[in-house]
């Protein structure tokens, strides 16, 4: 019988936002993280920000790794980060990789997205980065309240209250 006590597995969502269909890189990274002992949820290509955030919530991941090659990162990344904030998700490490021009990196980092791994990044450095930066204490502290649903926390962050009055899941209706 295997030991079941308090085993802590790092869970990572690997997602391809937007319309580019090249997921070789994402799959290679998913495989490398698996081989590093992590549980990797792979959602496939052409993911909307809503799909990514919903998957991250339901799977309760420690990290989201978005791979993007299409150049649409400045259109999609802010939506993902906004949606996470609206849903009260404040303890997930968000990383990006793919083709990210140097001049965009400061703006991406300002969104709270880290890593920003370009082509040629050694797998081990991605694995090490995930291990070093996931919020290890997130499972032992109380879950923050749900933004938007109870209406009590939405005042804290500006610019997020519009159009979410029907509850947390309602924003999902725009997916597709």
């Amino acid at each position: 019988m295997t030991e079941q006590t308090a085993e802590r597995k790092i869970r990572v969502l690997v997602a391809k936002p937007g319309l580019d269909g090249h997921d070789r890189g994402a799959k290679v990274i998913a495989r490398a993280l698996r081989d590093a002992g992590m549980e990797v949820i792979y959602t496939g290509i052409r993911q909307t920000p809503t799909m990514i955030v919903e998957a991250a919530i339901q799977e309760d991941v420690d990290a989201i790794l978005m791979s993007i090659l299409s150049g649409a990162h400045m259109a999609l990344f802010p939506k993902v980060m906004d949606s996470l904030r609206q849903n009260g998700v404040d303890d997930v490490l968000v990383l990006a990789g793919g083709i990210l021009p140097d001049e965009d990196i400061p703006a991406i980092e300002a969104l709270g997205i880290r890593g920003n791994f370009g082509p040629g990044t050694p797998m081990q450095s991605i694995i090490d980065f995930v291990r070093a930066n996931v919020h290890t204490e997130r499972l032992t502290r109380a879950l923050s309240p749900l933004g938007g649903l109870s209406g009590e926390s939405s005042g804290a962050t500006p610019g997020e209250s519009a159009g979410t009055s029907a509850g947390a899941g309602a924003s999902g209706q725009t997916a597709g």
Partner: protein
Amino acid sequence: MEIVDRVLAGDRRALARVVTLIENGAPEARAILAALHLRGGHAHIVGFTGSPGAGKSTLVTQLVRELRRREQRVGVVAVDPSSPFTGGAILGDRIRMQELAGDPNVFIRSMASRGSLGGLAASTRDVVRALDAASYDTIVIETVGAGQAEVEIVRAAQSVVVVTVPGMGDDIQAIKAGILEIADIFVVNKADRPGADQTAAELRMLMSLDTHRAERQWKPPIIKTIAANGEGVPALADALANHQRFLAESGQLASRRGQQARSEILALLNQALLDRLRAAVAPAEWDQLVEEVIARRTDPYSAAAILARRVGLNVEG
């Protein structure tokens, strides 16, 4: 407990966190589960099993869509294997299910098997318990792609759907002892492929040989589906509703629940005893006994008896 209240109120993040705590065997999980158990018991729990590539994930996705049309709230627990070497896993069942991701009445959770055999993870039943308390009407468990003997799903589900595909000829013979016996509903998926009628006929023939059929009082329907385009899925949803009704009216729901509760209590006792044993016996002593058995100075039965006495159990040596 605050988190329990949030799960009961339909907070998806709270539910997701509870599932993580259950999976990790966190110390607080037990009290949470105890509270959630008292609030559950309403969901129809459906298991899907069958060989890898039979189309389980696609079929489950289509079934969820059909159940949504019938205004049900649906939970999905999809189990994929963990690597026996690294403990890592790639959980890919969501790839086919992502179209459901924006629907607030659908909750999907991927689980790694984490070393368990039998097609489920050790904590799958407890995860289902949490979803049940969160008042999903139907909870679908998708097992690890299973072959012959991964029949754990019987102990977790009320209705078991066995998914097969045409052209597996001899394999149907091979599975007749294990997976075939646990089916409440058979699905012949990819029914647009040649041989679907023959596969259905073979299943029908095998069922006619089942000597326990009379006492089961339920004849498993055989449903042909094309999961890729949804054909046959309404018939599958109907069959599941029929089976649910049958279970309730025949009294078998109560007896299945009884068996499941019994086996759960036994499993917990097993675990408690093993934990006590681990605490009572030093690893060096274990190793010493193992050595003695290998060297044939003693036998496994006597070794077990010696260990059992340490926790106050008298076992015949």
